[in-house]
């Protein structure tokens, strides 16, 4: 009752009523077995993949299982979060929900089924070997101490890195940088030629966080991983140094002017796709652009694009190691266990989404990297795309975590890094502020 009121009251009481109510207004279809003509209905909600991909996935699964009808609801992320909250509050969550690792999974943990036994049933006792270890540990990010269950399993994983436009680099006789100094001079040269040297949408939280984490992975990888897990070490010298290096991207004119007000998506990505940007911090998901019918030829073949990891920020440091983890995954709600028929059908759909025709469909659109080992695209790809893809597949197996477990700490990190970039706060003060919030969160 209290949970119902929390969302209903927040959604309706104040002036954000229209927005929140819009999110809450999605009709929740019954998650019970609807025994219409012996078909079992499984409801699936998510914010990703895009509707067109999801529809293709659903068609394939329904074709494979004619006795299962899948009802989907795909919404933009902000609307999806609101819809999930409302549904959870009213006990009407669908059978399968799309999840990112960490806070979202933890928030719905009480509504989700522990998946260890189910995974063993679906993929055998060695099922953990079927997923990259970074992804599996991210799936459990934020679990209470001693809780070794996983409540979400990834469908797709990602690696973050720097992409560059090979055409622009060739035209200006540049090579992928091996140091920050070279990266800065490359960016300046590109800018001088009329392009944007290094585009950073620093108004978008994820990309601020990821850029910082790529830097901090060079200066204090251990402190970074501990802090991300919830053992705050944000004021370690290496973490402060990383914030200072982050500022250098702005003060040295590496990022475009006004980066703090820019969005990575859609603005930056569109400019990069249009060949107007030299470098950009993205990840393995950029490969999906090769399958977009509207992409220019150089992007369709990816011949114009290449990748590198962030080079050493200073002498004595090493380039950023592979970082990544869960792009998105799925959880099975407690509601799906209310009927044996629905539970069985939900397990089938769940399996197909992660390791069957569902993921294969998604993979053939190069949506991102498959989390389940052994899956490979069955479409024809040129050698360059295949090389990029296989590099990413190798990297995800050894990738370090790229997520921060606590969303309040993540928000604090982003806003303080923005202050550092704007010059209104020193790196040391910013990390002190983050540490203070992280400690308060740890104690709460």
């Amino acid at each position: 009752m209290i949970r119902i009121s929390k969302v209903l009251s927040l959604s309706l009481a104040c002036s954000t009523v229209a927005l929140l109510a819009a999110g809450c207004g999605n009709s929740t279809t019954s998650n019970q077995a609807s025994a219409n003509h012996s078909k079992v209905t499984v409801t699936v909600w998510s914010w990703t993949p895009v509707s067109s991909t999801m529809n293709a996935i659903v068609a394939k699964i329904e074709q494979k299982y004619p006795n299962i009808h899948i009802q989907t609801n795909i919404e933009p992320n902000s609307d999806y979060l609101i819809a999930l909250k409302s549904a959870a509050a009213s006990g009407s969550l669908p059978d399968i929900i799309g999840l990112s690792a960490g806070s979202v999974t933890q928030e719905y943990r009480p509504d989700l089924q522990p998946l260890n036994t189910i995974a063993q049933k679906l993929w055998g006792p060695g099922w953990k070997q079927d997923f990259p270890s970074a992804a599996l540990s991210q799936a459990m990010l934020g679990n209470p101490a001693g809780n070794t269950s996983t409540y979400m399993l990834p469908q797709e994983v990602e690696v973050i890195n720097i992409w560059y436009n090979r055409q622009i680099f060739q035209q200006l006789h540049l090579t992928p940088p091996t140091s920050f100094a070279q990266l800065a001079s490359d960016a300046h040269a590109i800018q001088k030629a009329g392009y944007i040297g290094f585009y950073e949408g620093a108004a978008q939280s994820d990309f601020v966080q990821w850029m910082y984490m790529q830097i901090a992975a060079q200066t204090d990888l251990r402190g970074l991983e501990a802090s991300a897990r919830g053992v705050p070490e944000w004021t370690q010298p290496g973490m402060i140094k990383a914030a200072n290096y982050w500022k250098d991207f702005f003060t040295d004119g590496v990022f475009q002017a006004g980066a703090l007000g820019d969005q990575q998506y859609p603005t930056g990505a569109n400019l990069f796709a249009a060949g107007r940007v030299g470098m950009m911090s993205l990840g393995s998901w950029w490969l999906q652009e090769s399958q977009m019918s509207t992409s220019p030829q150089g992007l369709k073949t990816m011949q114009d694009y290449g990748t590198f990891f962030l080079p050493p920020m200073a002498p004595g440091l090493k380039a950023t190691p592979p970082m990544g983890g869960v792009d998105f995954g799925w959880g099975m709600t407690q509601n799906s266990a209310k009927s044996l028929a629905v539970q069985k059908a939900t397990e089938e759909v769940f399996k197909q989404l992660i390791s069957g025709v569902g993921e294969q469909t998604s993979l053939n659109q190069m949506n991102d990297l498959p989390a389940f080992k052994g899956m490979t695209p069955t479409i024809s790809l040129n050698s360059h795309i295949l090389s990029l893809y296989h590099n990413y597949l190798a990297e995800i197996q050894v990738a370090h975590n790229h997520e921060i477990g606590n969303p309040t700490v993540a928000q604090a990190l982003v806003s303080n890094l923005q202050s550092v970039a704007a010059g209104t706060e020193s790196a040391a003060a910013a990390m002190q502020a983050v540490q203070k919030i992280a400690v308060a969160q740890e104690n709460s």
Partner: protein
Amino acid sequence: MQATPYGHGTKWRGWIYAGPSLILFALFMVFPIVENVVDSLYRNGVPGLTLFNYRAMLHDVTFGIALKNSLLWLVLTTVVQMAIGFFVAVLLESRIRWGRGLYRTLLFLPMAITPTVIAIVFSNIYAPDYGLLFGVFKLLGIASRFPALLASARTVTYAIIVVNVWQWIGFYVLMYSVGIANISPEVLDAAKVDGVVGWRRIWYIISPMVRSTHMSLMILGAIQALQQFPLIYLMTEGGPANSSQVLGSYIFQTGFLESNMNYASAVSIVLLVLALIVAGVQLLVTRGNFAIGGGTRS
């Protein structure tokens, strides 16, 4: 049945007619507000009633910024939209002889565009290096003076308010146009005969005659300003460093991104109180004299 001045049973009949609406009102308005107040008195994940969230707000810098920005939005958007809307409407009604409908439609068009599209378009217009506005500065030879409007804490809120004004101005023009069209021609002719023309005609005749429209738009503008969320979220996510945060966006951040629904409830109660104060003051000032589209109804 008890007799009323209007006949037997009228009192009960009134309750029966009003009942369904009252039930819905209680269910969807009163209940959530009460529950929201109760939720705001819990600390996230901790049992027991407490004023923790309200006390925390006093030390929450971001809440302070959000409150200040919400008030800024309230004053600026309402005043600017009303002023521009009124004068454009006067211009349309008194100076434009042909194509008046076309102008109205063109001005109204931005309202039909989704905030997502508007946010993308204006982010590009404002962008340094490649934006439209930058292009104008470049043409004028003052590119080096171009301000990164969305990247600076000093300008970001104003930059988004401009976008909001652009989107809503057509609505204000339309409302004022209807109000001005409802003014009796005899009144305007009489003023003309008495030599009240130009600015004096606008100030002493037209403006008082559309007083009810002023009041209506003031209330609508205030509500719309306090509701603001999509443009801010889409253009800056409340940044940089929370500098463009308003109460609406902060509720979303704390409640849905940071999963602290109790704190978000407390912030929403502050927003509700703020809205009630604004509405109360306006009702006091106007004594309930307002109408959509002008007229002289009291």
